[in-house]
Structure formats: structure tokens, C-alpha cells
């Protein structure tokens, strides 16, 4: 019987696959990305290299010496203190302690401050406290500290916000009205994000991380790109990171454009140039994990998309690696065997600049 290697399914379940099965899944995963994104599939050498990483006989793996990349953390501020159903450890502590632990104990290269809700809109009423927290953290830290939050445009739709829910309008075949509602929400969101970050910059933030951009679809991405553009103009030296919500920009509006390109339906390698054009200096591409497929399939698929994004991007790509993204299974605490293998493959095969 062929040697079997232990790996996981996308939902974290342990499975044992032979090298042949692993190679078949790698090839199929890469082909799926190539087909969807109309990009090149990985070469047989690259697939072989990922297979080697997967089959390494140790619990966790690391990159080859000299290939280390920077790691940045979104929402990490809260991971120590909070348990929000996504890998928080729930040790009572402050946000500053969270930031400092990441800097001094966990080796983070940049960090971000975020608040418990983590969307931009609810920062407005607590802006003074956020500014104060930023100042105190900056006084205690050396690594770049950004302010991070999610555009989360859904908060501008009924029942959470002032504009009629485009989902409801769409279902009633009121297409033009739905699009108008998305446009109005996007304008409002752009204004709010600029206003919040202007305040954070006054409080000595090193920049901003737009996390899960595009979560509410193309309008969400549209709003973010416009906020990036305005902030870049006002603060030529600030760090701006744009991290995505998913691999493909959902077409909720369908007609929104940036720089003459329709935003709906863009894949990571098409998102990168627009994010750069708007003025970001780090792009965080995302590839979703399919919980029904194996780790091999998911990883090859993710590496294929990310490699194309790295090639298309003029700014560093810090790939989003975590629960249910970047080939990693969807588990509250992402298993270290998968996290370390996926990260190594992203660095050594996709060529990412950071994680």
C-alpha cells in the first residue's frame, strides 16, 4: 500500500491521502483557480514543491532561512482579550497589552489597533476614546501601528442604517433603486472612513488597514478605493493597507467602476492594480477555503490565485492567512500543521511579500 500522509479537509477533518491523491488534488485545485481567474495554472515543479511541503514529516514547518517575510496582524489587538468566535483566547487584558504582546512577544512586524465591533461606522461615536487609545499605544510601541476596521457597508442599509436595503429592493425587481441605495451608502461610507482616519492620523497613527474590503460587494470596494485615494492625497507618507473580504468582488450593483474598470467580478490579480492606483502601499489578497475539499486542493488553488496577484501587483502583497482563507481549514483555532504549511507555500511558491 502506498504511504499515506495525514492532512485535513477544508472543515478541519483529518484525512489520510497517498501522494497520488495529493498530486491529483493539487492539480485540480490549481486548475480551478486558473479557470475562474483566467490565469496560469501552477507548473508541475511548483505542484511538486507544494506536495513536498504537505508531506513533510513534522507537525509544523517553516520557511527556508533567508526567506522570512514580515507578518502583520489585523484585529490582533483583541485576540488576547476577546473570544469572538474567531481565535480569540479570552485572557483579560487591555488593547494596549494586546498590541505590545504582538510586538514584543509574538514578533509582529506591524500591528493595528481596532475596537471591539471592528466596523468603521460605530467608531464615529467613540472617536475620542479611539484617539486616546492610539496615542497611549504609540507611546509604548516601536513597530508601525495602524488603525484597522472593516468598511462593512451593510451597516448603512436598513435595518442598521439610513438607506433602503438593496437586497430587499432587488427582490422586488427595483433594480435602479437598489443601485441608487448602494451608491448613496458608498458615498456615506467613504466620508465616514476618511473622517475617522483623519482623526487617527492626528493621534499619531502610522496609517490604516481596511480589513475585509468588499464584504458587502462592489459598493463596499468602491467606497474603500475612494477613501484610499482621498487619504493618500492628504497624507502622502501614511501606510495604507487594503485587505479583501473574499476572492471575487461580489456584483451587488454591477455597474460601479474605478479607473475605468468594473469592480464586480474582479479576482485578486485584477484587484491589485486598482488598489495600487488608489494609493495603497500594501495589498491583502484573499482566497476562500472550500470546506468540502481537501487541504491540497484548497492550497494549490489559493497559491495559484495569489501568485498571479503578486505578479500583477506593484505594491507588496501580504496574503490573508487565517481561519477559512489562504488554503487554511475553517476551524476556530486554525490547526498549526495547516497554517504553517500554507504559509510556507505562499512564501516559497506564490512569492508573497508578507503575511
Amino acid at each position, binding site marked *: 500500500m502506498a504511504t499515506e500522509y495525514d492532512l485535513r479537509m477544508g472543515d478541519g477533518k483529518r484525512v489520510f491521502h497517498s501522494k497520488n491523491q495529493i498530486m491529483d488534488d493539487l492539480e485540480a485545485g490549481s486548475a480551478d483557480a486558473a479557470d475562474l481567474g483566467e490565469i496560469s495554472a501552477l507548473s508541475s515543479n511548483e505542484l511538486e514543491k507544494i506536495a513536498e511541503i504537505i508531506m513533510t514529516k513534522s507537525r509544523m514547518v517553516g520557511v527556508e532561512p533567508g526567506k522570512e517575510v514580515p507578518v502583520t496582524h489585523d484585529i490582533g489587538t483583541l485576540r488576547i482579550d476577546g473570544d469572538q468566535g474567531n481565535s480569540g483566547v479570552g485572557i483579560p487584558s487591555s488593547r494596549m497589552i494586546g498590541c505590545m504582546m504582538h510586538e514584543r512577544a509574538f514578533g509582529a512586524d506591524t500591528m493595528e489597533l481596532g475596537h471591539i465591533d471592528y466596523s468603521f461606522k460605530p467608531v464615529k461615536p467613540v472617536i475620542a476614546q479611539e484617539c486616546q487609545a492610539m496615542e497611549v499605544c504609540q507611546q509604548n510601541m516601536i513597530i508601525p501601528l495602524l488603525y484597522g476596521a472593516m468598511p462593512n457597508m451593510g451597516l448603512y442599509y436598513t435595518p442598521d442604517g439610513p438607506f433602503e436595503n438593496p437586497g430587499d429592493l432587488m*427582490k422586488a425587481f427595483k433594480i435602479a433603486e437598489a443601485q441608487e441605495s448602494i451608491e448613496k451608502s458608498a458615498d456615506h461610507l467613504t466620508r465616514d472612513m476618511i473622517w475617522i482616519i483623519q482623526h487617527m492620523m492626528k493621534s499619531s497613527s502610522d496609517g490604516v488597514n481596511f480589513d475585509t474590503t468588499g464584504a458587502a460587494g462592489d459598493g463596499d470596494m468602491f467606497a474603500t478605493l475612494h477613501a484610499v485615494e482621498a487619504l493618500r492625497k492628504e497624507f502622502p507618507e501614511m501606510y495604507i493597507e487594503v485587505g479583501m473580504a473574499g476572492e471575487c468582488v461580489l456584483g451587488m450593483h*454591477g455597474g460601479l467602476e474605478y479607473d475605468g474598470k468594473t469592480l464586480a467580478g474582479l479576482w485578486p490579480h485584477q484587484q491589485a492594480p486598482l488598489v495600487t492606483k488608489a494609493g495603497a502601499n500594501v495589498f491583502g489578497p484573499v482566497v476562500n477555503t472550500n470546506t468540502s475539499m481537501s487541504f491540497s486542493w484548497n492550497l494549490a488553488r489559493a497559491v495559484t490565485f495569489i501568485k498571479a496577484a503578486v505578479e500583477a501587483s506593484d505594491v507588496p502583497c501580504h496574503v490573508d492567512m487565517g481561519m477559512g482563507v489562504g488554503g487554511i481549514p475553517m476551524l476556530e483555532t486554525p490547526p498549526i500543521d495547516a497554517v504553517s504549511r500554507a504559509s510556507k507555500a505562499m512564501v516559497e511558491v506564490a512569492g508573497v511579500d508578507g503575511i
Partner: protein
Amino acid sequence: MSKEELIKELSDAIISCKKDNVLAAVEKAKDAGMEPAEIIEKGLAAGMNEVGVLFERGKLFLPHVMMAADAMAQGVKLLETDLGAGATEKKKAVIVNGTVEGDVHDIGKSIVSTMLQSAGFEVHDIGRDMPTKSFIDKIKEVNADVVGLSALMTTTMQGQKEVIEALKEEGLRDKVKVMIGGAPATQAWADKIGADIYAENASEAVKQVKEILSV
């Protein structure tokens, strides 16, 4: 024009998402003597399925899906007289769809509702973060054939199981097909909790519901 060509024209017209194209193609097929049922099933509905697939691939967007669905409804209307009284009044299957308690993710769930509605089902989307009781109440109220349960988090998937248990307690389990979805769900999870359908995305959901209800 051969029948195959007419069918292709119907389905292409739907994919173009333009009402005028659809109406013209329907007229043409009618004049050529094609059966109304065939025009709908092989032409229009097949086109609508393709629209779903193109949406999933990021090639068509939500407004297109709605325009195509609207165009299809208008096309079907043109055939109503030929179909004979009551044929298109055939009772649509009723679906209750919602996101389970504790989970506010509703983007994917709403897309599923929209696609099911576009495919001609009567959909009652009860929203997000819905307690088990709300599902049961709505199922009873509208006499649902299918219930869709969305969960986007590993921590809320349990809610899908709870609704299934509650359906059993209420003696409704045999009357209602249960469909589950959301990123953490898998066929294995569906099997484990005894759901009838697991669908990975919205167009797959439409396909599976049609299959299980044989419509």
C-alpha cells in the same frame, strides 16, 4: 430554424438579460410551433440556470440575475394563453429561508433567496439571527415545502441542527425538506444532522431544490 437553434436562441436571450430579446425569441419559437412547456423548460429555464452559473463565476452580477428573471417571467406570460387555464398558476413550491440564531451574516443567504425567487419559487426570507421558533412559526404560517438554513460560522452551525430537531418535535419533519448552506457547511455535516440538501452556492441550491421537488 431547427428546434435546437430555437432553444439556443431562447436560452441566449435569457443570458443577455434583455426582455426584448426574450420576448422576440418566445414569439419566434411559438410561431415555429414549439410546445410552450418546452419553450419554458428547455429554453428559458435552461438559460436561467446558466445565468446562475455565470453569477457564481463572477461574470454576471445580481442586477443581471434580476433582469433575466424579470425577462423570463414576461416570456412565460406570453405563453400563458397557450398553456391553458391554470397551467402557469401551478402552485409554486414555498420556501422559507433565513440565517440561524446568533449569526448576522446574511449576504450569501439573501443571494440564495434572490436566486430561488428568480427560479420561480415563492420565497419567504425571514432574515438573519433568527431563533428556531421563528423558522417553525413561518414554516407553519406559509405551509412551506422547503426550509433553507444559513450559517456562516462554525459556532452557529449548531442552529441548523436545532431547527431540524424542532421540526421533528413539531411533527413537521416529513413535510418539509431541509436545505443547509453557508461556508462552514459540508455534505458530511448535512448527513450528520439529517438535512436533505446541502448546496455550496446559490445556483446549486436552485438545482437541488428543483431536483428534490421534481419541478
